[in-house]
Structure formats: C-alpha cells, structure tokens
C-alpha cells in the first residue's frame, strides 16, 4: 500500500513538471496566466486599491470626464468609475467561478454516470443533453432569469445550470475509453466498488480536459453575466458590475464615452486572459499539439 502511494506521488510530481515545462514555453498562455493573477489580486485587494467608495455619490461631479482626481471619469450619479470597475471585478470573478463550479459539478456527475454505466443510463442522459443543446442558451437563461429575482445567486445558478452539457460530453467520452483500460479492470478484479472505481481510478485521469473547459468556461460565464447585467436583468445597481456600468454608458452614449469604454475594456481583457490561459493549458496537456 505504501509503495503505491509513493508511486502515485512521483508520477504526479513528474506529470506536473512535464506540464510546467511545456506550459512555460507558451508565451500566450503565460500572458493569460499573468492577466488572471493580476485580476485575482485586484479583486482581493479591492478595498485597498479603489480610490473612492464605489457607491459614494458626488453631486458636484456628475458625468465628469477622466481627470486626475477620477482617472476613468464619473457616472451620472457622480460615482467614481475606476472604483466601480475595481469592485466590479469581484462580481465578475465570483459569478465566473461559481457558475463554472456548478456547471462542472453537474457535467462531471452526469458524464461519469453516462460513461460508466452505459446502456440505458447513457442513452437517457445523452438524449437529454441533446435536448438541452437545442435551446439557444441565451434564450433559456434570459427566460429563466426574468422569472426569478435578479440576484447574483440566481444568475450564477442559471448560468451554471445551462452550461454543463459540454463538460458532460467530455467526461463521458473520457470514461468510455478509460473504463476498459487494464488499471480499471484490475481494480474491479480486486473487488473495488463502482463508486471507488469512478472516484479514485477513472475520474482523476479524466480531469485534464475538464480543467481546460472550466478555464474557458469562466471566460464564457463572465461574458454572459456582463451581457445580462447590461440588459438590466443581471446584477442590479448600486452593486457595481461591469455590465451595469456599461448600461449607463449606453444611456449616455453621446456625452460620456468613458462610461462605456473602460468597463468593456475590463471585460475584454479578463475574458482574453482566461481564454489564453485555457488554450495554454490545453496545448501543454496535449502531446499531439506539442510537436507543431
């Protein structure tokens, strides 16, 4: 028993070092990782970094253009846009991570069941996945959100609940190929239970593509949240979110370009960061792509 644990540790460390060696060479992936880290830092340190209270009104400075005091300008209530964007990063990241957490959990659960048990379980689940994929996702999200209170939790749940199908397909495919391998057969011959085989033997080997899709998923969830908030059915003011700052930008399009320019740029850079990181991880994990 001791031996196997040690062996596992060594292969784990070995795999990590191989991964890192390949990831390090990918400049775009490193840029993505940098963006992601910086953003996490900004979100964590928001109270220290933001020059003003994001909800503080200033009747003297309504819609003032970028200046030394307010380098991203102020909105129609005189609130500092930079501070709102800094605090908005917390909302975006929170929604991104939790929505993807929900989607990934559902997808892994459903995909493992379908892939491991096969037969009617598989057909039933996969037909349901096909069904869910028929809905234009944004329609579905919009319909559900509009009937719920537009709270941050509801948004996370709905984005998560409509985004698990891709993960489920990925995990199922991995399970289909892994469950016939020798190490799984030997575990079964030794009398391991289904649950143990799924959790300890197959799942750890199926997680690499899930990690990639989760990273890309964070980007997608952030985009969706900002679109919803932009349409006025996402995060509600006064809570700052990049999407609802943009709504103000749309309403004052002719007079206040800074209101729409900066929050959109924040979304673009964030989504770009997660996409680059995701692609970088994919390239580093996939030996076929390394040769190119």
């Amino acid at each position, binding site marked *: 028993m001791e031996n196997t644990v040690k062996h596992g540790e060594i292969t784990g460390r070995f795999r990590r070092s191989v991964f890192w060696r390949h990831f390090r060479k990918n400049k775009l992936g490193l840029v993505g990782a940098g963006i992601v880290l910086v953003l996490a830092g900004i979100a964590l340190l928001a109270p220290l970094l933001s020059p003003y209270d994001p909800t503080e009104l200033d009747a003297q400075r309504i819609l003032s253009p970028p200046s030394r005091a307010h380098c991203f300008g102020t909105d129609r209530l005189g609130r500092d846009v930079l501070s709102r964007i800094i605090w908005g990063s917390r909302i975006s990241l929170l929604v991104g991570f939790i929505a993807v957490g929900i989607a990934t959990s559902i997808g892994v659960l459903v995909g493992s069941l379908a892939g491991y048990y096969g037969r009617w379980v598989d057909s039933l689940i996969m037909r349901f996945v096909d069904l869910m994929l028929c809905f234009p996702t944004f*329609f*579905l999200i919009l319909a559900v959100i509009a009937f719920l209170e537009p709270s941050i939790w509801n948004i996370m749940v709905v984005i998560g609940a409509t985004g698990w199908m891709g993960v489920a397909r990925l995990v199922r495919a991995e399970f289909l190929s892994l469950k016939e391998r020798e190490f799984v057969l030997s575990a079964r011959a030794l009398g391991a239970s289904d649950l143990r085989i799924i959790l300890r033997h197959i799942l750890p080997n199926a997680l690499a593509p899930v990690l990639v899709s989760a990273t890309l998923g964070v980007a997608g969830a952030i985009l969706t949240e900002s679109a919803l908030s932009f349409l006025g059915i996402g995060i509600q003011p006064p809570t700052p979110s990049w999407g609802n700052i943009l709504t103000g930008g749309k309403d004052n399009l002719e007079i206040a370009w800074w209101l729409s320019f900066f929050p959109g740029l924040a979304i673009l850079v964030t989504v770009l960061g997660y996409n680059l990181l995701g692609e970088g991880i994919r390239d580093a994990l996939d030996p076929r792509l390394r040769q190119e």
Partner: protein
Amino acid sequence: MLRHILKRILLSLPLLIGITFVSFLVIHLAPGEPTSLQTDLNPRVSAASKAQLRHLYGLDEPLPVQYVKWAWRSFRLDFGQSFAPDGRKVTEKIAERIPITIFLSLLEMLVIVLIAIPIGILSATRQYSLFDKATTVFVFVGFAMPTFWLALLCMNLFGVHLGWLPISGLQSMNYAQLSIGGEILDRARHLIMPVLVGALGGLAGFSRYMRSNMLEVIRQDYIRTARAKGLPERTVIYKHALRNALLPVVTILGLSVPSLIGGGVIFETIFAIPGMGQLFYGSVMSRDYPVIMGILVIGAALTLSGNLLADISYGLVDPRIRVAKER
C-alpha cells in the same frame, strides 16, 4: 440517402416534443406569474378578480392539463394569445418578426463565410508568418470581445461622432419618400453595423476552425502526391486541399444557428431592430408566457432544423459519410 434523411427527421421528432416539455416546465415552475405583474401593485384588485384573471388565462388548471392543452394547440402552430394589452395571436407576432431575424442571421453567415475562409486558407498555408500571427491575435480578441460593447463603441464612433451610419432601426424616417435605389441604400446603411458586429464572434471561431482544418488536410498523403507529381502550388491548395477542407463547413454553419439567434437578443435590443430577439426581450420583461413559450420553442426548432440540415448536407457533399452510414 433518402432513408438516411427520413431516419434523421423521425429521430428529431422526440427531441421536438422534449423541447416543448422542457420549456413549458422551466417557465411554469419558476416563481412569478403574469397576473401578479398586473395585480400585485394595484391595491384595488380584489382576490376574486385575481382568480378570474387566472381562470381567463387558464392558469388555475393543474400543470399537466395546461401542458397537454398547450402542446396540442402548438402542434397546430397555435401558441395562443399574447398577454400584452394588444392581445394579438402569438403566431402572428412571431411571424412578422422572424423573417428579420433569419435575414440578419443569413447575412451574418454570408459575411462569416466570405471572410473566414480566405483568412483560414492564408494563415494555414503561411503558418507562423506575420499574417498568421496577426490573425491569431484577431481570433483571440474576437473570441473575448463583449459584442454589445463593440456595438456601443461603433455606434458612438460611426453613428454619433462621424455621423456616417444610422444607429437604430432598419429604415430612416423618410423611407417612404425614397426612390428604389435610395431604399436599398438606406436599408444597407442600417444593416452594416448590426451585421458586421454580430458576425465578429462567429468570424473568429470560423477562421480558426478553417485554419486547423486546412493544416490537417495539407499534411495528408494525397497532397504530398499532388506536389510530387509537380502540380503548381495554387492547384494543390485551391483544387485538391480546399475541397476537403471545406467539407465540415456546412456542419459548422448548421451548428452556429443557436448562437446567431441567441445573440440576436442583444443586437436587436441595442440597435432597435424589430426582430425576434427584441420581441423575446420585451416579452421576458413583461412575463408574457405565451410569447416566451412560442419563441423558445421556435428558436429550439430552428436550431434542431439547423442541425438536421447540417447533418443531411454533410452526407450529400461527402460520399464517405454517406456510405458509412448506410452500411
């Protein structure tokens, strides 16, 4: 081939029923009712008239009964009447909007295909060149672009500051007085921004896809053979390689239907285009059940037919698939 097509159509029928079931369930299990919007804020509405209103809309019946009634009607393409004050038929409301959305989506697809294919070919044949690197950057930015933001920026620049293009609607106020040529020009000017901005996401994805397709094809043996027998590079690329690299294009086009339709909600709202997306947004805001249901079902049915069309036409253009499936 005919059997294959028939089989695919039959297989998608249960999916269609499932679609109606899921959309019905989602909307009716969510809290909040259309009547509450009309009654909650009005203190003079009595409980009796509330119940009357619920009865009028059939909301007092058990869910399965409501579903069966609704499903039976919708098979005859009757989605009931809108809860909106105008009380018009849902089918009518959707019918006058759907051509606009479909027309816009088709234009977007056209733009995507016309631009993405050359980009894909050029960056594959010149892999790692400056052009390839520039398009890679473009692709990543295109993927990450919040398109509603880009729409705002373009409206601001081309509409407000430069005044080159109109920023909303499909036609100008003086449309009726224009000559035919003027009408076409007016329409085109209104369409440029929504179509180009709307196509960006698909453009990025599609040119990336085209590039990797092409890269895969030009590494194959038959291309090496073509080069070895001395064919000029142009013939090798555009005659031998391109044909095979283009095959999956139809599939991708079919599969891009849901994202084009879904994206319509945002564009049509921003650019004030009276399409299905704008109608959907409005109905969602006023909890107009019948219209939401109708659009959700029609949107999903369009997606389904997109998939079906992709599947069938892939079989038509690629004999290998056809043979494999008939066996």
